[in-house]
């Protein structure tokens, strides 16, 4: 049982991840952009962040940089991207300990990844 923060502007993706995570017994906090997610992170108590890259107001990359560099948060981060410039994203996330998943993704595999990351953290 973990508190997972979702940052995603696509309502269907958000809904789907919520269904899967809740079914696995996790608490889900839904936010529609990076700014909302930052507010939630500032509030504390989040165990894992699942975020999209392309979002209005504050995008996923900016959010991760803020939480690692400024807020000093070291929780696991899973990032979803529908973009094709994979290498560019990899380079900009270098050193930020982010697990990147390309869209379209498999919900079951994503859940396994989240579970794995949470378990590793507890250990």
């Amino acid at each position, binding site marked *: 049982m973990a508190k997972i923060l979702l940052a995603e502007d*696509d*309502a*269907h*993706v958000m*809904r*789907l991840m919520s*269904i*899967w995570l809740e*079914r696995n017994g996790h608490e889900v906090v839904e936010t529609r952009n990076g700014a909302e997610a930052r507010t939630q992170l500032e509030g504390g108590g989040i165990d894992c962040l699942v975020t999209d890259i*392309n979002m*209005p*107001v504050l995008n996923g990359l900016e959010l991760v940089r803020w939480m690692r560099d400024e807020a000093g948060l070291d929780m696991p981060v899973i990032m979803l991207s*529908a*973009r*094709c*410039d994979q290498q560019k994203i990899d380079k900009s996330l270098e050193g930020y300990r982010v697990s990147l998943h390309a*869209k*379209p*993704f*498999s*919900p*079951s595999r994503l859940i396994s990844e989240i579970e794995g990351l949470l378990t590793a953290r507890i250990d």
Partner: protein
Amino acid sequence: MGRILSRFRAFWSAEEIPRWFGLSLLVLFIGAVGAVSYYAYRHSRDYAFAQTTHASEDALDLLAGLIRTDSQGADPVDQTLLHRFARSQRCSELRIYDRDLRVIASLLSSETGQTLRSRSELAQARPADLISSTLSDAGPNRRQVLVRVPVRSGGNPPQHYLEAVFDLDGPIALLNLLQAGSLLIALVGITALLAVYHRLRTQFRSVARIAGNLSDAENVEDRLEDLRINDTQDALATGWNSLLDLAISLKEEVARSAASTELLTAISTNAGGELAEAMGTVPLGVMLLAEQGEVCYANAMIRRLFGWDGEVASIMALSDDKISADGAAVAEVVRSAQGVAGAMRATERRIEGADGSYYNVQVVPVLTQRQLRRCVVLVLDVSQQVRADVAREEFVSQVTHELRTPLTNIRAYAETLSSGMFDDPKVITECYNVITKETRRLSRLIEDILSISQLEVGTMQLVLDQVDLRELITECVRDVRGIAESKEIDLQVVLPPKLDPVRLDRDKIAVVINNLLGNALKYSRSGAQVVVSCKANEGEVRLSVKDTGIGIDEKDHDRIFEKFQRSDDPDVQGETGTGIGLTTAREIVRHHGGDISLLSKKGEGSTFTVHLPLEKRAAAPSTAAR
């Protein structure tokens, strides 16, 4: 009198003395010489004749003193004497006769003893002294003189007479010979004089013509051809004409040289000249650099880029500290092209201008001997190409993103269904709904991409049918109502109670409506209103999508319809989009013979109106109605 004087003066100052005058002078001269010669000849001949006659008379008188003949007959001595005398003195006749005219002695022996008969008047004469007479019967061209001398013996009257006929032709023949010789010499002299005169006259005539032509012609240097002497063949004229040819060719050479100098000046001085003017209009910066970075030539684009304004920048150099930022960037490329010992090497680099333009800077060394430090710099504005490349790259990226988004939902929801982990009927229905909706979204997206690619290659074809627009609009609105609700946007539809079917391509017009609706919802914030309306009016159907969203800056009104172009507005950039929706929509409408108009103001919303003709007007060439 004055008239005669003036005529004489005119004659005297004439450049050329008339031929008749020269000939008259010549005839007069020859006549005078001939007359004088003839007179001299006659005079000298008479003088010679008189002298010879006197000599002959003296000689005969002397002979008479030696005669010893008496009345009895001739002395033999006398006979011998007569012969010797006749021989030495060229006597044709020599005789002695007595008072009775009886010949005592004669050169002709047959005459001796005879009585003289001929020349009766002379024979009758009994002169007491010497007489002489020219014989008139001597014949043509002969001159003879008869001399008669009494032979005296003491103080007695003469009893005998000595008579001789002298031939004077000998001395006169000599004289004639001398005269003929003199005449010949005179003739030769005159002929030589004539030849010299003729020669000098021709020469002087040529000189006179040259002088006349020179004094007559104005602007001699422009009319060299007029100075030519055509009607004479003498060496002076030929020489003069050759000199003129040389002058003309030199003049042409000077003109050619001047023309080429002008061309070079035009090229090298930036101002004036057709080449320089032409170079000023080409969309390419051209600059020739000398050693040390001095600018030998810079066309208009280079001067604009470097900020060298004004008519002609007399001294321009890359080291100039007044050059613009763009100029400095070009100068930097030139500096980087400098190799070892300052020799230039070919370099090409892209630079970004201060205003966001992109330039391709190419440094081309001028490969002439000892000119290794010279180079030509070409600057090409590639902003459009760069923008197009960036837009294309962005388009691919956006299309990928747009395709992946519905695909993500389809895959994820399908996997949710197939996992069997969710048995809540509400969840299952939701999954089916999302999959259906996202499939439709994907299909629309593919239709858009297909349309744009058909537009690219010009193969778009319309499948025309009678379409109920009310129904089509309602359907399209239904598809996006969910988005409107999630964004809390008030989506309204205003349709007339009745609308006749319109002949159009249903799928393509659906793309148009979806794109316009999608944009209206995408660029409207929560609480905004979007109204879709449609009405038939004046031969056309007007379909409007009006929103109270962020609006479009007037400067972007044209640009947003261009392919891959989106407004620079940060609000627009914050939303995802391919930049092909409006392009596709407008092209589809234009293929139907209509157009899309836009009314919008930044911050106040936008109204896109689709004008579709009820009777399809001239279609685009690539359209084939079926």
